[in-house]
């Protein structure tokens, strides 16, 4: 059970118990619904964006501790970031867990680092990245709409 403490660190358990920004945003600028069909995790991500900056981001849904805490920490990390910085952080986080994709230099993970223990549990990586993929989908959809205007 000791090795599991690496994965289930206090911070993670705390975010699971008291998820931050766990709420709906009415009339959001961006929204996406993400699922992990394998384990039944479901998550909704809401976005408010002003002048290219993420003013507010929140989530709702049901998932495991890794999924919930990752979503909670994501909302804290994203608030106030530009869209471009948010994307870079997503890429950096994704790379840290999967070693896939390009690794953006100079994008420190900060508090998200505690989640990188998931790397040693390959079947759980999807739990940690679900919220981020959902955020990415919400943002891409939003950008898609912007370009068609």
């Amino acid at each position, binding site marked *: 059970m000791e090795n599991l403490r690496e994965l289930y660190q206090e911070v993670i358990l705390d975010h699971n118990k008291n998820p931050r920004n766990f709420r709906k945003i009415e009339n959001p600028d961006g929204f996406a619904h993400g699922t992990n069909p*394998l*384990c039944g995790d479901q998550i909704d991500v809401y976005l408010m964006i002003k002048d290219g900056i993420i003013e507010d981001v929140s989530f709702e849904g*049901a998932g495991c501790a890794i999924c919930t805490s990752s979503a909670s920490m994501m909302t804290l990390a994203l608030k106030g970031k530009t869209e471009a910085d948010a994307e870079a952080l997503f890429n950096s986080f994704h790379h840290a867990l999967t070693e896939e994709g390009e690794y953006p230099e100079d994008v420190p993970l900060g508090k998200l680092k505690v989640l990188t223990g998931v790397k040693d549990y390959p079947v759980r990586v999807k739990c940690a990245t679900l919220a981020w993929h959902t955020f990415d989908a919400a943002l891409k959809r939003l950008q898609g709409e912007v370009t068609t205007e």
Partner: protein
Amino acid sequence: MTNSAQYNIKAIRNDFPILGREIFGKPLVYLDNAASTQHPTPVINAVKDLYEQNYSNVHRGVHTLSQESSNLYDDARVKVRGFIHAACVHEVIFTSGATESINLVAQSYARPILKEGDEILITHMEHHSNIVPWQIVCEQTGATLKVVPISDRGELEMDQFHAMLSEKTKLVSVVHVSNALGTVNPVKEIIDAAHAIDVPVLVDGAQAIPHIPVDVQALDADFYVFSGHKIYGPTGIGVLYGKEKLLNAMPPYQGGGDMILSVSFEGTTYNQLPYKFEAGTPNIAGVVGLGAAIDYVNKIGLATIAAHENGLLAYATSKLRSIDGLRIIGEADQKAGLISFVLDAVHPHDIGTIIDGEGVAVRAGHHCAQPVMERYKVPATARASFAMYNTYQEIDVLAEAIKKTIDMFK
């Protein structure tokens, strides 16, 4: 609690080499048997011996090895016949698994007879593999899929079943033992009611076959399906039992070698049963391994195994019930082989990972039964499922591991 004196659990465990493994330095406690069971040495050796001594293609050569392989292959069919008490050996069709068996019946039995307005009747507790093949055939034919509801306890609403069964029903397909809830369904009552209005019944025996002695003639089942890998045999091998009369009337499922008597470009004469439904070179090692698995189960006796497993189930049920914040999903009167549960404070996925750290292997997820998860409003469950080699001590380890998990999340 101790294991029954007559039941030589030590000898049985010694027959399963993998049970000697350690996981994170702890003895393996394998409680994911409903997903797939482990293999005893006689099964491993049967496959090894085949490859080392007798292997060749079956039913095709006059040479010695082909003859030996064919004999081993045919012997296994005889063993399956005996195990499920089929009337004839040729009513046993080898498939790749329960999934293929159900698809075969959907496409070769149901599809040719279904018309718009006809109905297939299944239940709310089916595995996806006893749902999707019927959805496909309904889409192909315009027939409708009807679903018998289940109660909060996880039992079929039999009143509803009787009410839904009608002259529109062309086939009933029902799981014998639910892989998500552990419920043992009253398949005899279902078959009798369906036969009263001439409706055939397929029984999905994937979870029943390792726990419950099955007599397809006593049940009067029209089709009975199962997979080898849930009864200590290899993967990729399964069985479709079908009544001779029905199988004879069905068109082939796939075309190819072995399933024909003669081929010309003017026309082809299909082979007789069972070969009509076994196109192509079969899974010879899988069949031989399944035969050895049945021998092994017979040696210990399925009734003896069932008694041991029922003891484990009762013990585990009372043990888990006493854990605060644990809820068992599926509390039918008649259960076999498994317990599904959720914790108030911990997601099943986390339970699975954390108790793996204690060497305990359980399944966490929707168990290919998403409608069941929806019915009980849970995203997933953790499931501990038992086999002949599990012990009471292992249930204690499971309970302790669950308690540690809860403490960790406090």
